[in-house]
């Protein structure tokens, strides 16, 4: 009995060592990363990258017998693209997304520039890639007013107008801005739009990080 009681000494020491380790190595709650995009207000003097990550359009083909109600003549879903205009001048045109009621875009063309992206992040300046070329977004000041024009591309006639929207950048927030439209009308064939706003910081890394995160959030 005495011997068994004495076993409490090594057991106690093991528990003491384990307890101390647990106390000193306990994982503190991870700090919010400084670069995380927050829902902050827009700084009117700063430059921002603005792009549409998603446009959802109404299904206009309510009556197949009436061509007026079809997006495309061949009964296909619309071929969506958008333009961003500043003071009436086009500053950005997106690539086209064929046959879809939900069109998506990314703010960055990653596959082409993956290798160069690494070099840029590492601060290697001797690369033959114009960084701006891999960004698929318009560049505007925080106090700008832009117009978003959405179209259904048509090869034969003029592109159909999906909708038009005037946006004050100052009314948006950094990150994702979702806009919904419940009333389908002549100039509002869109159902929902997601607009992403990313502040253009000084260094390439600071700039890339939020864009990449925005892209990552899409998945």
């Amino acid at each position, binding site marked *: 009995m005495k*011997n068994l009681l004495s076993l409490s000494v*090594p*057991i106690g020491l093991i528990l003491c060592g*384990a307890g101390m380790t647990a106390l000193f190595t306990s994982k503190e709650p991870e700090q919010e990363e400084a670069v995380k995009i927050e829902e902050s207000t827009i700084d009117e003097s700063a430059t921002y990258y603005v792009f549409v990550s998603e446009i959802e359009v109404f299904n206009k083909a309510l009556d197949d017998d009436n061509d007026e109600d079809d997006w495309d003549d061949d009964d296909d879903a619309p071929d969506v693209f958008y333009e961003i205009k500043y003071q009436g001048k086009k500053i950005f045109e997106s690539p086209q997304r064929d046959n879809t009621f939900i069109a998506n875009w990314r703010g960055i063309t990653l596959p082409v520039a*993956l290798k160069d992206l690494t070099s840029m*992040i590492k601060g290697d300046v001797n690369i033959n890639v114009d960084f701006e070329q891999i960004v698929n977004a318009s560049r505007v000041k925080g106090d700008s007013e832009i117009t978003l024009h959405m179209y259904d591309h048509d090869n034969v006639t003029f592109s159909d107008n999906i909708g038009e929207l005037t946006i004050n950048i100052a009314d948006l927030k950094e990150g994702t801005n979702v806009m919904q439209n419940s009333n389908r009308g002549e100039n509002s064939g869109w159902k929902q739009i997601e607009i992403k706003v990313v502040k253009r910081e000084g260094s390439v890394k600071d700039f890339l990080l939020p864009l990449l995160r925005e892209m990552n959030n899409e998945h």
Partner: protein
Amino acid sequence: MKRIFLLLIFSSFTLGIGILAPTMQTEPRLTLYDGDYTEVMNLLFPEEFKTSSFSIIEGIQHMWGAGSKGIAALIFGFSIVFPVLKLLILWMATLKLSEEKCPGRSLKIVEKLGKFSMVDVFVISVLIVTVKGLPGGSQIHADWGLYVFAVSVVLSIIAGFMLAHRAHERELLDAKGK
């Protein structure tokens, strides 16, 4: 005898630390034929690409959770149950010897257990070596907990040798007394 007790005290304390301290550190990397994409992946998937440490207990939990219950049980046996049992038996034998009694069966068990000494450290080392070269260049490093754990095992081995030596002396004295 004081030395043996001291060794066992330190061995017990360091064993407790070694079980819960970080034993291995995983460093995920993505190296393709045309370059190192770790930093890009770090930006894209910060959660998946962060460096993380595992203690023996956490490693066992992960393995158990991942369905490798056999290996988890093996590592639990050799890394936790075996060293704790070994220390308890050594402690009992040392107590008996300090009371000028022959440790008898305890000592035989200790001598048998001696054959398996360091097997616990060996198991963890094999694990690290096995997964050290992960695809994409990911790496696993030994962390400080493994060294503390090894110190605990070495101290218990030394205590075992000293105990065996003392026990043989005791047996010789008893034989002369008879």
